[in-house]
């Protein structure tokens, strides 16, 4: 009796909150859908081009072809969902990319609702029928959300993260929760409390991290696109390792509401797709101001889709005049030779497209790693205080309060998380604050300024997304410093709050089929549109590479 009262009471409150504050009025969402559908239909025809004659056709937008399929009634959303879920389940035992997969019935029901809308002549939304994987640190109200941590095992949030809510409102189907390093702390997904995810290109290798599950799921075509989070490279590095497109938006571009905080001043919700267009369409869906995140920006979100010109409409030098700066510190010692040559080849490709490519030096680049780790662990030591076993999550029985706290946290957190909480607590302690946290903030300002300077002389900056391709599972497990060093390419971008797009640009010879190498393109704040435009042209004109991992059978992707 008592329990049920509390239960319903709680539910009522959270429902009320969500109803009154989170839901867009029906008429408004209808309006925005109409706007989207206009641009989408006009663009959908563009992708129906005859394929180019290269042996490896450039990646097309699965989101747009799904839309075409549905609107032309060639297949129903329910049929599409059925076939895609079958493939997801087929490879899942080998990859272990998902921590939670809902019943097929629940997803079918969503797909059938979309079909009903289509049958009624309503626009089902730009993401209609698109299967979206969601990193487990992004809250979903109908699925557990654990952040890859035992401390939240079985925890079900009473609300959807803003990014998830927007995906659903636009017709996307959340297909499951993807594996990750606990609370985003790691670069391999091995620090998940629950399972290790394999790299689709070589199952003995890590998919990268911390959004390893989201990257592997898109790479293996278990889902069309996925949401990840990027605090120091957690979208870009796994995108590189798995050969998919990964986008880390400008800090503030996408609401963090519902993203379990790791380092609040660095955290961003990012996107994965198998093409630049899909990644950009997903970003467009989730970007924009949110009144539930005081750090989200009120900057307008431009219509990125107009950037995705079809390859046949391109001039011979489609990027003529674009100034590309290759960050010299990122192709220096400590970076694998195979990675350097792939990036140099990418630079040549930019030149072929009409860009001027120059090496630029960011002398503060090497300061980024220590500054990042000080700031990230400091903020995380604070953000993870709420996992105290009192209100939710893992609670250990104890005779007195300190033991309840100690036991719940000792049992709930993994060793990497504990290490970072300890380091962060130390860095913020009285007497150490000035030497660590404050100093790191000063370094952050220097880094921000040096990026600003470099981006005043270049339109975009390029670098590898990681110093190496995917390494073996277990290889760096006992060498955290080596793992941290792998973040060198990405952390500076978070410190500066800038957007960056990673897309596969080549291979290193390793593993059964070679391992993909990701190119990182860094742009000015809130200039994701330019990154997507350049990235799309780069991707559509890159010949002789096909970034589909061996785990995906050839006939599988021809849907």
């Amino acid at each position: 009796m008592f329990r049920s009262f509390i239960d319903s009471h709680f539910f009522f409150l959270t429902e009320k909150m969500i109803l009154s504050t989170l839901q867009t009025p029906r008429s408004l969402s209808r309006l925005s859908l109409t706007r989207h559908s206009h641009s989408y239909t006009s663009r959908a025809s563009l992708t129906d081009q005859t394929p180019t004659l290269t042996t490896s056709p450039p990646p097309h937008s699965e989101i747009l072809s799904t839309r075409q399929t549905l609107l032309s009634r060639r297949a129903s959303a329910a049929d599409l969902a059925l076939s895609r879920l079958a493939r997801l389940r087929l490879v899942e035992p080998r990859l272990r990319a998902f921590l939670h997969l809902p019943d097929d019935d629940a997803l079918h029901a969503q797909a059938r609702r979309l079909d009903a809308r289509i049958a009624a002549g309503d626009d089902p939304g730009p993401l209609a029928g698109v299967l979206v994987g969601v990193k487990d640190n992004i809250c979903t109200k109908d699925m557990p959300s654990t952040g890859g941590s035992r401390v939240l095992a079985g925890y079900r949030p009473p609300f959807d993260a803003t990014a998830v809510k927007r995906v659903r409102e636009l017709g996307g189907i959340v297909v499951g929760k993807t594996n990750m390093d606990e609370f985003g702390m790691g670069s391999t997904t091995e620090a998940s409390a629950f399972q290790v995810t394999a790299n689709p290109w070589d199952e003995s290798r890590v998919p990268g991290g911390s959004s390893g599950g989201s990257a592997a799921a898109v790479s293996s075509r278990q889902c069309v696109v996925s949401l990840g989070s990027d605090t120091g490279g957690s979208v870009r590095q796994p995108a590189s390792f798995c050969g998919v497109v990964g986008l880390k938006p400008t800090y503030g571009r996408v609401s963090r509401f519902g993203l379990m905080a790791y380092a609040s001043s660095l955290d961003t919700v990012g996107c994965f797709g198998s093409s630049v267009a899909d990644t950009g369409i997903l970003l467009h869906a989730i970007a924009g101001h949110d009144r539930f995140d005081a750090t989200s920006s009120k900057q307008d979100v431009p219509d990125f889709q107009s950037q995705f010109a079809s390859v046949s409409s391109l001039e011979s030098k489609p990027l003529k005049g674009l100034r590309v700066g290759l960050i010299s510190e990122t192709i220096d010692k400590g970076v694998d030779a195979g990675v350097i040559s792939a990036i140099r080849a990418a630079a040549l490709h930019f030149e072929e497209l009409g860009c001027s490519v120059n090496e630029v030096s960011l002398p503060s680049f090497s300061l980024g790693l220590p500054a990042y780790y000080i700031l990230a662990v400091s903020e995380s030591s604070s953000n993870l205080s709420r996992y105290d076993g009192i209100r939710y999550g893992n609670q250990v029985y104890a005779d007195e309060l300190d033991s309840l706290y100690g036991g719940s946290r000792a049992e709930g957190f993994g060793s990497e998380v504990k290490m970072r909480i300890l380091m962060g607590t130390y860095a913020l302690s009285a007497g150490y604050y000035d030497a660590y946290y404050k100093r790191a903030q000063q370094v952050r300002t220097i880094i921000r300024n040096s990026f600003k300077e470099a981006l005043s002389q270049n339109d975009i900056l390029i670098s590898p997304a990681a110093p190496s391709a995917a390494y073996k599972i277990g290889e760096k497990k006992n060498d955290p410093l080596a793992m941290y060093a792998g973040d060198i390419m990405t952390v500076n971008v978070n410190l500066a709050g800038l957007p960056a797009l990673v897309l596969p640009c080549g291979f290193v010879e390793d593993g059964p089929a070679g391992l993909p190498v990701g190119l990182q393109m860094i742009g000015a704040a809130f200039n994701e549109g330019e990154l997507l435009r350049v990235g799309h042209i780069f991707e559509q004109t890159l010949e002789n590479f096909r970034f589909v991992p061996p785990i995906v059978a050839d006939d599988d992707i021809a849907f």
Partner: protein
Amino acid sequence: MASAIFRSLQVHPFLLYPTTLLRRRNGVYHLTTKATQSQTDTQPRQPQTKVSTSSTQSKKLDKIPKNYEAIIGIETHVQLSTLTKAFCGCPYHYGSPPNSSICPICMGLPGALPVLNSKVIEFAVKLGLALNCNLAFNSKFDRKQYFYPDLPKGYQISQFDVPIASAGFVDVDIPVEFGGGHKRFGITRVHMEEDAGKLLHAENGNYSQVDLNRAGVPLLEIVSEPDMRNGIEAAEYAAEIQRLVRYLGVSNGNMQEGSLRCDVNVSIRPIGQSKFGTKVEIKNLNSFSSVSRAIDFEIARQVQLHSQGQEDQIVQETRLWEEGSQRTITMRKKEGLADYRYFPEPDLPAVILAQEYVDDIIKSLPELPEIKRRRYEQMGLSMQDVLFLANDKNIAEFFDATLAKGADPKLVANWIMSDIAAFMKNEKLTINEIRLTPEELSELIASIKGGTISGKIGKEVLFELLAKGGTVKELIEKKDLVQIVDPVEIEKMVEKVIAENPKQVEQYRGGKTKLQGFFAGQVMKLSKGKANPGLLNRILLEKLSSNS
């Protein structure tokens, strides 16, 4: 079994578990870490802004040996009366059922983020200005980190090194009965923060429950300079803070409900010694009189220890005021300085005030208590009247509105402080709830002054107006209360009374002149109280003596 219960409860906002979980080593349930931050703020500073115009010695204080001096600083937490909490959309109502006003944000669920309620800044700026502070046009929020079950996020959003307002003062008039005089007390800082929830301890002591209704409610913490020297000064300081927040409309200032909470720091030192003594913090003060009495008790306790050479027994600790036994008892000893690991709150942007924003708030400020008191004083009112009228914003507004109709300040003050105050007290009404309007009070005073009605009838009319409303004119007409000022008519009544009481007339004329009062009363009765008393007495005296 037990673990099954915990399992089932842990996702619910309302928790049960054995009280031993929450029991601190010394056996007292309380947050050990709260409110000690300003230790360093209040203690080592010399009073800077003290402007003392007269001593506040009173009989009571003479008990304290004259060769000691007490140093008192106060931390006040004011709960703001915003419609919703500081960082989420939940309303807060005192006394609501536990956990009935909570959401993912104030519960600190994973992924929830704070968004500042802009009213909090407005209220902070108002109070900062009213306390004559310097405003920080560029301030920020910080996280103050500690673990306690009533603190959902494991940190409190507060302000650390850049408070929104600092270096102000407040002027206070000490009541006449405590020696009177004007005092100025320094304000160190005012900062914004969020409240924590509440722990409810079961009566049998077996478990404790967490109520998060109050979690996230906005507070302003006001830290005073250590400028107070005795309990009365401290109580007057606190009362002035209460008046200010009520005048400004930023809080209901209710101490019983915890909307205004005072923690005081007390130390003593021999007069002439420049070094401060060891400071003791006192909590659980929920009225001004307990502030005053707790401090005086604590001063006496410390002086006694010191004068017996036991000053080492005065230790830095938090003591609890026990209302029942009227004394302070040890709550917990300080275990070194707590490290709250403050750092800037990354979820909230900086708080930047525009000059126009502040200017608009300055323009909107009401007349503040100190200005009002000085204005009333200049009208020639006694300090007792001044303090009474200015104490309550609504009474002051009623008073001012009555004056605006042209009434004499002293007469209005007398009416308000005597019959109107008595009526409100008996009927337990506030001045806004009585039916009497300032217009009618002014009319009533004018009617008496102009001789339309007598003072006695005036009182009757007043009580009618207080209870039922209406206008003075209507009442006088309806009840035929116009004073009889016609000497012929009064003479007739006097003659009638004399004729009806021959015995008393005889006695009077035999020298028992005290009987004049009897005759006056009889005539007044006959006139139904309407006879002009001056005229009546003159004619009565004439008649009684003329026939002798």
